[in-house]
């Protein structure tokens, strides 16, 4: 199973904390802009939960 996630680009401030918590899902490109996978395997959900927790602007959402 896969979980859909989304990052609100209006909120995202490119702190990069999600890329620490879940590097398989989130990474910062060389310009410091977030790139991410919007479909996440369930095996990675704990990491994504961590990323949600540590985002200073709470920009990461799980989609139903």
């Amino acid at each position, binding site marked *: 199973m896969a979980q859909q996630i989304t990052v609100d680009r209006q909120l995202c401030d*490119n*702190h*990069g*904390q999600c*890329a*620490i918590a879940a590097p398989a899902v989130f990474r*910062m*490109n*060389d*310009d*410091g802009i977030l790139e991410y996978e919007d479909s996440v395997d369930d095996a990675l959900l704990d990491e994504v*939960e961590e990323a949600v*927790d*540590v985002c*200073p*602007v*709470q920009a990461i959402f799980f989609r139903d």
Partner: protein
Amino acid sequence: MEPRIVVVGASLGGLRAAEQLRSAGWSGQIVVIGDEPHPPYNRPPLSKATLAAPGTVRESLAALTFRPKRSATDVTWKLGTAVTAADLAAGVLELDDGERITFTGLVVASGLRPARVPAPGPLAGRHVVRRLEDSLALHAELAPGARVVVVGSGFIGCEVAATAATLGARVTLIEGGLGPMERTLGPALSAGVRGLLERHGVHVIPGARVIGFRGAGRCTGVALADGTEVGADVVVEAVGSVPNTAWLAGNGLDLADGVECDARLRVVDAAGTALPNVVAVGDVARYPDGRTAGPARRVEHWATPTDTAKIAAPTLVAALAGEQTPAPEPPLPSFWTDLFNVRIQGVGSPARADRIEVFEGDPAAPATGAAVGYYLGDRLIGAVTAGLPAPRQLYYRQQVLDASAPATLATV
């Protein structure tokens, strides 16, 4: 009675504690008690975006309120209520509404309140920034041209000064014994931050001491020890914080600076013995620095409640089942600030450093990009980037992680 964990404090620490208790398998009651009327909300914007443009109370709350995890929905929130006293041995708390509540386990997450400048004078016109209402009240007075005097040059003081300057106020920043953010960033980057503030029109007064507030009824000026007086329409006191621990008095704890804990975040008594059913979370907790083997200290960063809850909650759930968790990996502190669109990010414990090395750029010009390493002896224990994209911070963070493998945890 059904087993019950009470969490005292309903800010980010209380929220993360409740979430992590469920994640750790706690199926009994969870009651979170907080003296603010709002559910947990995000505080960093209170000195930045919210202070600049809060909108209505409803709008600012909508923007700031945390979304609780689905797993943490079965939590009882008792807001607008302060805990006034605790009998830890009996497992009873007294609340300011007269109620008494018993607990099986207790999480101390009662946080901090702003310290005030210890000088006489009128209170009206003087602000602190900790709560949403503080930020809204200050915003209302930040008219263009207003003379704003910020006392204290830590993170909050510098951020408030920058925001007020951006709004067109005439800002004076009064440093204390240390330069801007110097306690955390060290002298090189501190000088750079001072220059950044000055280039944006903030008048910085170094090395000053406030001895009084002038004015009849409302504060109109700040008197300094050297005899000068700084005229003010608005004063902001940003001189640090005081842990909220008075409610824990009388239980034989060391409350000299927050509540003393071991590396598992178990609250310890004055003899250093861990209590069986009490843990602490967030910036009220004073716990050993397992990465630099430094003295126990409180960590006043936004990441601390989340970092500590992930240790404290499983510790408590295991203890209540008569078990013990493995020794936890010590958190790596991390922090950031934003000043005039310059992002400063750091990790580790720069305040413990005895030597600083510039890795790249010029710390005197943080807007153009700089990275600084902090060493204790030969070991890299912290790194800060300023005006650089996040990948540079992530790179240096990994260097610190590699160099600061957990030291022996003396108090486990």
